[in-house]
């Protein structure tokens, strides 16, 4: 058990919700300052809360996913209470047991409420680093499928396609075979972004002397690799094709 496991999700939740006593706050803050993992957990919890706020602007108090976070804990306590009550039953007279069993029953209905339901935007970054035709074809099929699926069910999503190394060729003007497909996706969906690795462009230009221009739908980012790494840190799903 390292120090960051000392603090439960419920405790961090309470911190984010500003429900801790000043002493507890100070304790968590000082622990967080020496533990990177702990401070990351706090940040994640904070971000989750922000996302919920954005997703449900009219009902900020209803942090349903917070409840789902603490669900295991609650279930654990309730079950422990049930088993505890049972062990008490073994020892005590049934008459005495009654007063203990009743509060447990009172907790039970609570459990059914905590169904996880986050309305937060899903985010996924696809990464391609070769110009294999079949792979690229599959990539665009996947991207389109994901966009369609989410649109059809009314769930929000953001999709990014990052190309580096030979994958860059997919976004290169005059070279790519997917010009139409990209333009089509870009015009039909607002929530897709194509990003070309600037490092790769520079390197190819230096190595071969050719000038590379990317499609108008693609933005140029400095480094594809550090971009996808950053996205993962920010909690995006990642799919390397």
């Amino acid at each position, binding site marked *: 058990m390292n120090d960051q496991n000392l603090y439960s999700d419920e405790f961090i939740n309470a911190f984010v919700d500003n429900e801790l006593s000043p002493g507890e706050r100070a304790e968590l803050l000082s622990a967080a300052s020496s533990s990177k993992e702990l401070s990351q957990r706090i940040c994640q919890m904070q971000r989750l809360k922000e996302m919920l706020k954005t997703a449900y602007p009219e009902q900020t108090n209803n942090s349903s996913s917070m409840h789902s976070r603490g*669900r*295991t804990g609650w*279930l*654990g*306590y309730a*079950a*422990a*209470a*049930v*088993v*505890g009550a*049972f*062990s*008490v039953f*073994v*020892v*005590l007279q049934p008459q005495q047991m009654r007063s203990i069993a009743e509060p447990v029953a009172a907790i039970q209905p609570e459990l059914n409420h905590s169904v996880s339901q986050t309305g937060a935007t*899903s985010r*996924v970054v696809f990464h391609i680093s070769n110009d294999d035709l*079949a792979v690229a074809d*599959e990539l665009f099929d*996947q991207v389109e*499928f*994901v966009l369609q*699926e989410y649109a059809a069910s009314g769930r929000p999503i953001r999709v990014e396609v990052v190309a580096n190394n030979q994958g860059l060729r997919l976004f290169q003007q005059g070279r790519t075979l997917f010009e139409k497909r990209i333009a089509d996706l870009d015009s039909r969906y607002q929530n897709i972004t194509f990003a070309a690795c600037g490092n790769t462009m520079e390197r190819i230009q230096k190595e071969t002397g050719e000038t590379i221009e990317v499609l108008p739908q693609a933005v140029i980012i400095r480094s594809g690799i550090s971009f996808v790494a950053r996205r*993962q840190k920010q909690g995006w*799903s*990642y*799919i*390397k*094709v």
Partner: protein
Amino acid sequence: MKQVKQSLVILQMVLLGLALSFGQGVLAAMDGEVKHKVVIQVSTDDERTQQIALNNAVNVQKALGQDNVAVEIVAYGPGLGMLTMASKQKDRISSLAMQDITFSACGNTMQKVEQKTGKKPVLVEGVKVVPAGVLRIMELQEQGYAYVRP
């Protein structure tokens, strides 16, 4: 009489303590809350890569202990073949499926294969079907799964 009562109280407390820890442990396990979670993507028909994916799954389970890690292998596109009866790995897969490694075949890919060949691919025993491999991988990462693509 008083002594008997006292020891009864102590016994009661010990039992309660035991029950508390037991109850939490059992529930944590029931809820599927394992400490580590990993999803392994197989999207290539390269047999070496497929073998490495299986090795990865086994090694992770060995290193962390079968009860401490959830491992799911998601195969789609050209990778689907690994999970069909035509796969060279089929015996290994059905054995691993019995050792808590989850295998998910992409339903979309299966449909595509059926349209192309006229035959529905037959999956190895123990393999389950998910609607779409890519969506499954996204979902699992949203649930905190680490992503590995050999």
